[in-house]
């Protein structure tokens, strides 16, 4: 049992070690569960018994959290847990054949664990490797650029019980693929430069903001660095890079001005839960310029007067945890983080990294905060908003990775410099994660205002049929819209840019996205929980050849309902890909209208598939009505 290095440790010792490391505080429940699972492969009833005692929380709380996250297992899932990324881009690169190949190699069905408890194979939502797919995760480690050869080698390594640490390192190499850099991806700011500039800055229009809120302002000799910094962010016209485009300055100011209860403090949170299928810019930013992001967070802390911050890193990027922790440690040693930053007495700010565990919904800021608090990632009822009632009910800003990186540059170069880049309502640059049908997938950073056509030309896309901008929750653009521009005035985006050429079936693209939303719905509200499942069933019904105009009307009614009744953005946008493709790629749907009148989704022959699988038969006699082509061949 040398497979897992922690195997020598007893379960009780693992639990004790992890719980102690997290100060026995149930607020760290998700991190505790995740780390225990890393050592024990799954969260057994024993683990939950031990945790219940060690943390003093009811079992229901532990099981409720463990049951919410895709990457936490309360059933044994094998010592090798393989999850294939199943974004549409992975599919276009042939992941289906590879999944089948690995399953056949290992005598396994997707979703099941091998009888010897060695391995399980399943699907997961986009893992952020779209520019180098098809990709998989094995025990939360990413393997991109899969080929049939690598799949065969993996099967061999698994069968031989080879520990992951002995697998070829080349498997796990993730490329950055920066194709076009601008101010962010090309930044050469030295660590601390932005902070120093922020500290030395004085306001252009006097002392406007109230004092006693930030590190510096409370001091007798205080210069007004923080309020001046806020002025610069205002002048920069920086808007949130997560896609919604909310004014960063307004958010920071609201948090800075929020009334503090006794014992409360302010928090800076970096949303690195990059879950939107097709997006991978945050992975590269955190790989190539983590200092820029962390410096931006520190600038934010300086501005709003926070002492603690979190980076919420998606579980798919687990491999970035150690490198990022090393950067944090180095910055502490350089007095850019921790106590008395830059030698300012009382200038304290430190950052903890929390890992997600496979839940797209945690990219929604209030769900992210719930998750940070060690709970199920369910979006909160709003108002109140996080700027006043965030982490532990205390004032909190949550910004995207790219937003903090931009803030660091604004600290260094000033707001006017930044506002001059891009367009009037969309200042600065935007990093696009380009994937799909093109010669050079990867990251492209442009000043806002770039046209779709320009991006397509730069990445070597030809014969393009459609571009899905900002992921499944964004918009699908057809050929006649390629002169539209990236920017809050026209097409806002979190950065995903998936390209589909004329050979692609846009119905299948939409169906993949609908499956994604169904899988990622948190289940809190009725319309999204049930509605996304109904929508998935309808799309599958069309796929299975039972479509009629009736189903179109149903899809439209459901869309309306999801948009008006859902609790959060996931439900509001879950129908977007379907509505967009129906409008713009109608022939792909018309092909599925095999019936004029309503036809039931239930298919008697399909219902026999389980019996066929059990008996190992697939001949004509095992079908109720054999497919016409098969009959033709037989005749």
């Amino acid at each position, binding site marked *: 049992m040398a497979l897992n290095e922690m195997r020598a440790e007893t379960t009780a010792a693992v639990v004790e070690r992890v719980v102690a490391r997290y100060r026995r505080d149930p607020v760290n429940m998700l991190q505790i569960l995740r780390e225990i699972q890393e050592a024990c492969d799954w969260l057994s009833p024993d683990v*939950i018994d031990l945790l219940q005692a060690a943390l003093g929380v009811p079992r229901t709380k532990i099981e409720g959290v463990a049951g919410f996250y895709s990457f936490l297992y309360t059933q044994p899932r094998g010592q090798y847990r393989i999850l294939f990324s199943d974004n549409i881009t992975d599919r276009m690169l042939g992941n289906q054949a590879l999944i089948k190949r690995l399953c056949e190699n290992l005598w396994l069905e997707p979703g099941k664990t091998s009888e010897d408890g060695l391995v399980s194979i399943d699907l997961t939502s986009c893992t952020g490797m779209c520019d180098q797919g098809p990709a998989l995760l094995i025990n939360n480690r990413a393997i991109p650029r899969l080929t049939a050869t690598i799949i065969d080698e993996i099967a061999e390594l698994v069968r031989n019980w080879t520990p992951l640490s002995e697998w070829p390192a080349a498997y796990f190499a993730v490329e950055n693929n920066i194709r076009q850099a601008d101010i962010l991806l090309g930044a050469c700011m030295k660590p601390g430069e932005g902070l120093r500039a922020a500290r030395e800055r004085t306001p252009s229009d006097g002392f406007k903001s109230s004092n006693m809120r930030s590190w510096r302002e409370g001091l007798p000799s205080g210069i007004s660095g923080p309020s001046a910094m806020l002025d610069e962010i205002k002048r920069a016209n920086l808007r949130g890079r997560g896609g919604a485009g909310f004014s960063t300055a307004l958010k920071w100011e609201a948090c800075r001005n929020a009334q503090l209860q006794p014992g409360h403090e302010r928090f800076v949170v970096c949303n690195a839960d990059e879950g939107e299928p097709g997006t991978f810019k945050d992975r590269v930013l955190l790989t190539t310029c983590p200092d820029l992001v962390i410096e931006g967070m520190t600038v934010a802390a300086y501005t709003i007067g926070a002492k603690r911050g979190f980076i919420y890193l998606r579980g798919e990027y687990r491999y970035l945890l150690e490198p990022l922790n090393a950067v944090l440690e180095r910055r502490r040693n350089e007095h850019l983080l921790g106590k008395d930053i830059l030698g300012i007495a009382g200038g304290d700010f430190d950052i903890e990294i929390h890992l997600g565990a496979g839940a797209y919904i945690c990219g929604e800021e209030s769900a992210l905060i719930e998750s940070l608090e060690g709970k199920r990632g369910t979006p909160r009822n709003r108002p109140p908003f996080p700027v006043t009632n965030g982490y532990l009910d205390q004032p909190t800003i949550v910004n995207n990775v790219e937003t903090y990186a931009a803030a660091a540059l604004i600290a260094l170069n000033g707001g006017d410099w930044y506002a001059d880049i891009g367009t009037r309502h969309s200042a600065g640059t935007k990093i696009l994660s380009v994937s799909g049908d093109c010669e050079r997938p990867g990251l492209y950073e442009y000043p806002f205002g770039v046209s779709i056509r320009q991006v397509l030309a730069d990445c070597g896309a030809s014969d393009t049929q459609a571009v899905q901008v900002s992921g499944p929750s964004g918009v699908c653009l057809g050929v006649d819209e390629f002169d539209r521009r990236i920017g809050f005035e026209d097409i806002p985006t979190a950065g995903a840019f998936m390209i589909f050429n004329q050979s692609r079936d846009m119905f299948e693209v939409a169906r993949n996205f609908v499956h994604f939303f169904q899988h990622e719905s948190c*289940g809190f509200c*009725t319309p999204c929980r049930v509605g996304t499942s109904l929508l998935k069933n309808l799309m599958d019904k069309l796929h299975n050849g039972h479509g009629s105009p009736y189903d179109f009307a149903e899809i439209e009614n459901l869309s309306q309902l999801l948009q008006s009744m859902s*609790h959060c953005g996931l439900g509001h946008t879950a129908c977007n890909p379907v509505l967009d493709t129906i409008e713009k790629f109608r022939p792909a749907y018309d092909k599925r209208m095999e019936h004029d009148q309503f036809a039931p989704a239930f298919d008697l022959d399909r219902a026999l598939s389980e019996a066929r699988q059990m008996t190992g038969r697939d001949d004509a006699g095992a079908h109720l009505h054999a497919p016409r082509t098969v009959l033709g061949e037989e005749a």
Partner: protein
Amino acid sequence: MSTNFMLDGQSIPFEDGQTIIQAATQAGVYIPHLCYHPEFKPHGSCKLCTVKVNGRQTASCTMRASAGMVVENNTEELNAERRALTQMLFVEGNHFCPSCEKSGNCQLQATAYHLGMMSPHYDHFFPNRPVDASHPDVLLDFNRCILCSLCVRASRDVDKKNVFALSGRGIKTHLIVNAASGHLADTNFTIDDKAAKVCPVGVILHKRNGFAVPIGERTYDKAPIGAQVEAVTEGV
């Protein structure tokens, strides 16, 4: 001193801090709901109580009333959407009203009648949900669970026991009980718990009590849901 907002053209007084549904209920206006219960912290998950506030849809159980708000409630559009949500709840679980002990006392059934639901409309999911008959006094029939979390809140906030919780995610969200075995008998739940009395549907059923009141003579057989709320203003 109270101020007012407009609900379907009617002026509704409210006190500071009251939600729309609280103020409406006090004024004798019924807003359909399932996960809301006046004694517990609002959850806002069933979405049946959705109203339009100044043209924008929001759950009335979590939205605080404010002066001058213009709220739509009893409109064709909203009731059609509420009906669709009710249908969703019916197909998501296994609800067989004619044989259900809760028939006539069930808020889901009564709300469906109130909203004029004539069929489940959507294809049934027919989920496989085993029942839990382990407890000496109470049967749990998860087939009818609508995930309103009222038992969760009652057990946590009133009984201080945390007997119930939601686990899973999305369509796989389900109710769990606080025992390693997963059985109610192995928890400290008793029939006197508040949580034993709040289920709006037929999940938490008291044993040896079946059909004590015949169908036809039960709460919502006598008067439709909402009538109790509306009775407040009768004769005024």
